[in-house]
């Protein structure tokens, strides 16, 4: 494993000069093994109030039916499906980081995959609640399953993308949960073996009796790789199917073949933005600067530029094809989107998703934590508007002008949405307290090859090409967790 050194040209993935295996465990388990600080409590109370609002709003919807929302007979889908697609999209980055980056052997994923996967699971929970609420009679939610019934063996319609979506989302949720939990086992065992009393008993149950023997690890790695291999097409299929909920209909503005790739790119785009929103704060509050470095942040920003640009190209293509199709309904749908009564939401989407992420081409902005954090929120706002634009502006002016209508959210619509954000953050904050936010075992793998201290040793041994060393030292300038003076004398 550490038989050969990594190329000196690669930036370090763990910084700091005194990192040992024990220190990695101590640093990562700090929030789990100690009482939470004030910042955590403030965040938790605010999010828990949001989650409470969510409980109230969802219960109100269940009790009164979806008439509690601002829907009307023209706009039959609005904030609910917007929220659903938004949350599912956010969830995608977790799988992308844990599965796709594993297949591509991107080792920088090792320190962000755990929290990104947790984020996936919480985001899909938020998304699923929208689907259930949207059913109107949630106690009949099992009707989406192909169960034998007393209605003359009438089955679900297997030709419907909504049924595919049910299979896709439930597979996605359960497989992500399995992937996440299996990866957590060795880390739960670490907590278990350091704890005493009741804590040890609890973590012992959840560690499934993990021992860390050779065979356990060997199978663990095989399982992780295969799960990554099957999760990669899975994550692409999920948002493809979500997009087919729209694309297989004959509504102008929805009926386009570009939707699957466009939705998948948008999902990754918004997901990485949410990972940054969460991790930039977590990194600071939990003191994880040595593990989630500026290199990680820059890499994620690069993915945001890429996916943001793909989304931008998709918007333009969609517009062009609407004109080129020669279909006046299709053309009207797009003219109405950009200049009709909802022009502000269209231009909000364009600004937040296409224009502002281009600022990340500037190295200064890409490497500024504040700017990155603000841009990550801008992207999430933009992606919410993207779904709103696709859904509401395509529906609100349908074929007969007498039935044209506007959509106005009620307090319930707003509370379900704001509340779901509260629920998401509540779950995430609880996760940070009870489980390690970074995959301990996977970060330990990097210590001897990709850490700053290993590279320092390589430089001191003096076998490295001088130019390469100079380039490496120059690349360290962006790191806020590296002591520059250590390199001045070399």
């Amino acid at each position, binding site marked *: *494993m*550490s038989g050969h050194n990594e190329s000196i040209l690669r930036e370090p993935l763990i910084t700091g000069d005194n990192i040992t295996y024990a220190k990695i465990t101590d640093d990562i388990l700090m929030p789990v093994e100690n009482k939470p600080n004030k910042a955590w409590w403030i965040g938790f109370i605010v999010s828990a109030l949001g989650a409470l609002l969510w409980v109230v709003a969802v219960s109100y919807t269940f009790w009164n039916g979806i008439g509690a929302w601002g829907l009307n007979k023209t706009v039959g889908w609005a904030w609910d499906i917007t929220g659903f697609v938004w949350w599912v999209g956010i969830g995608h980055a977790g799988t992308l980081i844990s599965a796709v980056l594993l297949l591509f052997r991107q080792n920088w994923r090792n320190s962000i995959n755990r929290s990104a996967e947790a984020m996936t699971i919480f985001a899909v929970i938020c998304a699923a609640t929208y689907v259930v609420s949207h059913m109107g009679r949630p106690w009949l939610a099992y009707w989406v399953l192909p169960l034998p019934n007393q209605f003359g063996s009438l089955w679900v319609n*297997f030709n419907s993308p909504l049924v595919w979506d049910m*299979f896709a989302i439930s597979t996605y949720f359960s497989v992500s949960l399995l992937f996440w939990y299996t990866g957590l086992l060795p880390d739960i065992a670490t907590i278990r*073996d350091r704890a005493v009393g009741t804590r040890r008993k609890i973590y012992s149950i959840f560690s499934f009796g*993990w*021992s*860390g023997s*050779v065979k356990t690890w060997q199978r663990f790695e095989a*399982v992780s790789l295969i799960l990554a291999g099957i999760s990669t097409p899975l994550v692409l299929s999920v948002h493809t199917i979500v997009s087919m909920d729209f694309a297989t209909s004959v509504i102008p503005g929805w009926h386009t073949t570009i939707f699957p790739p466009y939705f998948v790119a948008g999902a990754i785009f918004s997901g990485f933005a949410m990972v940054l929103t969460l991790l930039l704060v977590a990194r600071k509050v939990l003191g994880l600067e040595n593990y989630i470095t500026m290199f990680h942040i820059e890499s994620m920003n690069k993915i945001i530029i890429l996916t943001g640009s793909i989304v931008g190209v998709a918007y333009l293509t969609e517009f062009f094809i609407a004109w080129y199709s020669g279909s006046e309904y299709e053309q009207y749908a797009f003219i109405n989107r950009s200049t009709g009564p909802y022009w502000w939401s269209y231009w909000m989407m364009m600004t937040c998703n296409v224009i502002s992420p281009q600022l990340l081409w500037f190295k200064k902005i890409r490497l500024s934590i504040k700017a990155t954090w603000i841009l990550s929120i801008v992207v999430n706002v933009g992606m919410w508007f993207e779904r709103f634009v696709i859904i509401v502006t395509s529906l609100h002016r349908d074929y007969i002008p007498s039935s044209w209508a506007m959509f106005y959210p009620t307090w319930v619509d707003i509370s379900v949405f704001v509340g779901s954000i509260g629920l998401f953050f509540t779950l995430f904050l609880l996760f940070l307290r009870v489980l390690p936010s970074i995959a301990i075992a996977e970060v330990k793998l990097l210590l001897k090859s990709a850490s700053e201290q290993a590279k320092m040793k390589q430089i001191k041994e003096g076998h490295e090409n001088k130019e390469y060393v100079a380039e490496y030292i120059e690349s360290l300038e962006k790191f806020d967790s590296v002591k520059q003076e250590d390199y001045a004398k070399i």
Partner: protein
Amino acid sequence: MSDIKYILGSFGDPDEMMHGIEKLQENNISIYDVYTPMPIHGIEAKLGIKRSRIDIAAFCFGITGTCCAFALIYFCAVIDWRVNIGGKPSFALPDFIPIMFELTVLFCAFGMVLTYYASTHLFPGRAPRVMDLRATDDRFVIAVDAKDNAAHTVIDGLLKDAGALEVKYNERKYISYE
């Protein structure tokens, strides 16, 4: 003979531990198992552990999922209750593919992970069989069966030469049982 059941060489560095394994093997001392806080690449070859066949299991579970999904949809939509949708054929294979794919992934993931848990004896509430509590933290532990290998001082010496920070003599196999 004493009550010592296992001799544990506790290393602080994976490369030194690998070196320790080599040393023991050169002296024909059999290794019971090795406990580490992270996967060690190349250790299976050294200890002569066969490759995991879990990928074969995964494939079988996956293909079962594909077949189950096809059978379910075909039965429901083609045999049991044909729905006339604009006169289109009931056996619309392209429409079956998304669910067939999803169930392939679902069966493969659950089948494989449950096989993994079963074959490695992992399940909620299982008493952890731990020989050294630091093996999940910062120590790389080689366990040698003391009954099978008589020359304890030789083992002790070999482990320490290879760089073991500590050599422990466990009178119980697993120290984690309370």
